């Protein structure tokens, strides 16, 4: 109705002319040159298989989940891969909730063709019981912010989520080998998917008036363009898919040029994806070590210089560069066991990468603050004043509101430089919530500067 028309966004004639004139001189309105890609930022979520990709102003989230289902009758040995795209109304005022529109369906189909038909994901390894049970992998892509070129961003999000996804391991048991037992992640380590190659989508926009072509159009350029083409290529030089649905005609030589450009871009984007996934896997491995704290340990050294102590004491050293917010959170949530830390071991083991850091035992200490009295508090306590001094010396100006009565610490605590790490690891748009935490919590806060553990007024606690 009228309401919908009035709410639709239309570009003004002036803006259109401006963009076209600029393109005639090979200038784009955001300052890139016509064949340049925007900056790609890849982040990971809490769980395996969740990714967040930012391509300039475009923001896409991907989640991968799996389920045991019956296979298709004509493919009894293969699992299945399905892609669901959600053009969330938060991305663009013109996206309507409910059934996906044609551009959402087109996006889903392009990504689907790139992944499934090029056999990028190995579906035969997803078979559990031939003809009866297979894994069905489901990829959910949520478009959060439409800054243009949704296909490429969504493709990267899907790939990253697939690479970091872990499916539970299952074994066949029972008398006739027909019973399937799915092992939870605590019992058996979940398995990654087998991905043979990474199909990267690269989108080109064509403008009739100037006979020019740009790579990775922004939202404004998409409103002006005459036609678009998406090429899905991988680093092996294969073309997995080409999509050019209507729009203005393009010469053959231009198409060949696009294919070459796509292969080149695919290489650089693949490298970025692999680097990001590599970092994630390293962090995940570090997390995994902490999870098995109760079992007898083998000293495992990973690049970050981790050392694992047997039995109850576990202790991890990490350089600041390897710490991430998510990892710290996992660390804190995972440490259910009571942990007693020995200062001597800590000092002995202190091999500082960049900055020596006691992480998990601090994390445990913070978790157990105010916890049940059966936990054996560490003998050496630090009173709040000396902690304040040490905090002040690290350049913290905000007053510390949260005083803890009992403070557990070790000598190594004074070596921490959490505040320095905070600016390094904090995202720019998160707001400091004010006072810094007390010494025990500094580690957690060091990695997550915007977090703040709220504690009710101590008076109410004392009263109760």
């Amino acid at each position, binding site marked *: *109705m*009228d*309401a919908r028309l*009035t*709410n639709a966004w239309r570009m003004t004639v002036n803006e259109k002319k401006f963009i076209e004139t600029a393109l005639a001189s090979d200038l784009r309105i955001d300052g890139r040159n016509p064949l340049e890609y925007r900056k790609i930022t890849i982040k990971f*979520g*809490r*769980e395996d298989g*969740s990714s967040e990709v930012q391509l300039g*102003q475009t*923001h896409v*989230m991907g989640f991968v*989940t799996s389920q045991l289902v019956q296979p298709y009758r004509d493919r009894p040995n293969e699992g299945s891969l399905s892609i669901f795209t*959600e053009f*969330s*109304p*938060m*991305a663009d*005022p013109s996206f309507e*909730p409910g059934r996906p529109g044609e551009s959402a369906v087109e996006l889903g189909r392009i990504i689907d063709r790139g992944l499934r038909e090029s056999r990028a994901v190995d579906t035969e390894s997803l078979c559990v019981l031939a003809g009866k049970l297979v894994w069905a992998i*489901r990829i*959910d892509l*949520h478009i*959060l*912010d439409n*800054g243009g070129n949704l296909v490429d961003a969504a493709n990267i999000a899907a790939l990253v989520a697939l690479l970091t996804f872990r499916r539970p391991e299952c074994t066949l048991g029972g008398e006739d080998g027909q019973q399937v037992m799915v092992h939870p992640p605590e019992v058996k380590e979940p398995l990654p998917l087998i991905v043979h190659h990474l199909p990267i989508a690269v989108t080109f926009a064509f403008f009739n008036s100037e006979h020019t072509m740009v790579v990775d159009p922004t*939202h*404004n350029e998409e409103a002006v363009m005459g036609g678009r083409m998406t090429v899905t290529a991988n680093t092996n030089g294969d073309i997995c898919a080409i999509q050019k649905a209507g729009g203005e005609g393009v010469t053959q030589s231009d198409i060949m040029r696009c294919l070459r450009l796509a292969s080149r871009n695919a290489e650089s984007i693949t490298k970025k994806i692999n680097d990001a996934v590599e970092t994630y896997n390293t962090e995940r491995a570090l997390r995994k070590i902490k999870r098995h704290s109760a079992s007898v340990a083998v000293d495992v050294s990973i690049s970050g210089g981790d050392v694992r102590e047997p039995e109850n004491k576990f202790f991890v050293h990490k350089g600041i560069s390897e710490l991430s917010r998510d990892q710290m*959170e996992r660390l*804190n*949530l995972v440490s*259910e066991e009571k942990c007693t830390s020995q200062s001597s071991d800590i000092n002995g083991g202190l091999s500082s990468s960049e900055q020596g850091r006691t992480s998990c035992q601090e994390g*445990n200490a*913070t*978790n*157990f*603050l*105010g*916890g*049940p009295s059966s936990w054996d508090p560490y003998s050496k306590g630090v009173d709040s004043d000396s902690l304040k001094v040490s905090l002040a010396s690290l350049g913290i100006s905000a007053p510390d509101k949260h005083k803890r009565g009992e403070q557990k610490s070790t000598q190594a605590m004074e070596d921490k430089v959490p505040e320095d790490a905070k600016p390094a690891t904090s*995202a720019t*748009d*998160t*707001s*400091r*919530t*004010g006072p810094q935490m007390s010494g025990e919590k500094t580690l*957690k806060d060091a990695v*997550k500067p*915007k*977090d*703040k*553990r*709220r*504690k*009710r*007024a101590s008076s*109410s*606690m004392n009263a*109760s």
Partner: protein
Amino acid sequence: MMEIDRADGRTPNQLRPLACSRNILHRAHGSASWSQGDTKVLAAVYGPKAGTKKNENPEKACIEVIWKPKTGQIGKLEKEYEMILKRTLQSICILTINPNTTTSVIVQVVHDDGALLTCAINAACAALVDAGIPIKHLAVAICCCLAEDGYVILDPTKLEEQKMKGFAFLVFPNSIHSVLPEGSLLVEGEPVEHGIITSVTHGLMSVEEYLKCLERGHAASAKLSDFLRRSLKLQLPSDSSKAK
């Protein structure tokens, strides 16, 4: 007072680390992300659009809430959350300012680790502030759980939620710092922040237990509203040239 053993070592009255960031999306008029521990919710607001929905009152502004779960189809649970959120936000917005318009609030669940609805309400409130929609006061939401022995804990994680006898989602107005004299802000002799905007309970609980939840939640809401006020205040408008 007996100590309850919470899995992550918090005391019964301790909330998880809070984080709030505003203005994270470029197309939306207002956006905010709110996380309590591992639970993270993203909210976006599109400011007044012309026209109201069919059954809505055209003499008032209308709020539309769209809840997007992490995976899966939209079902009854999502519709219920949408309705609760819509009614809560309707009571805090000044609806007479932009009559015959619709403001859309879109909530996206990024990760669910307990107390999801409270996270969403807080995020939606922050997003409304970021968008500049006129509101009377902020809403702070808190989740209180009731354990088997009548003990109340705040801000449960997903595992804790599943073990509890019952829980209550409570939404209070935030505390008011005002230059007006004290007396003029009272409603029927009580300060405004003693009111309850929304209360949704699950499970069985006695009246005393519910009142205990209310009292705990109310005390926590004071802290929460301080945090909200601080985090909303510190941000400067970074990008004034947002595409609308």
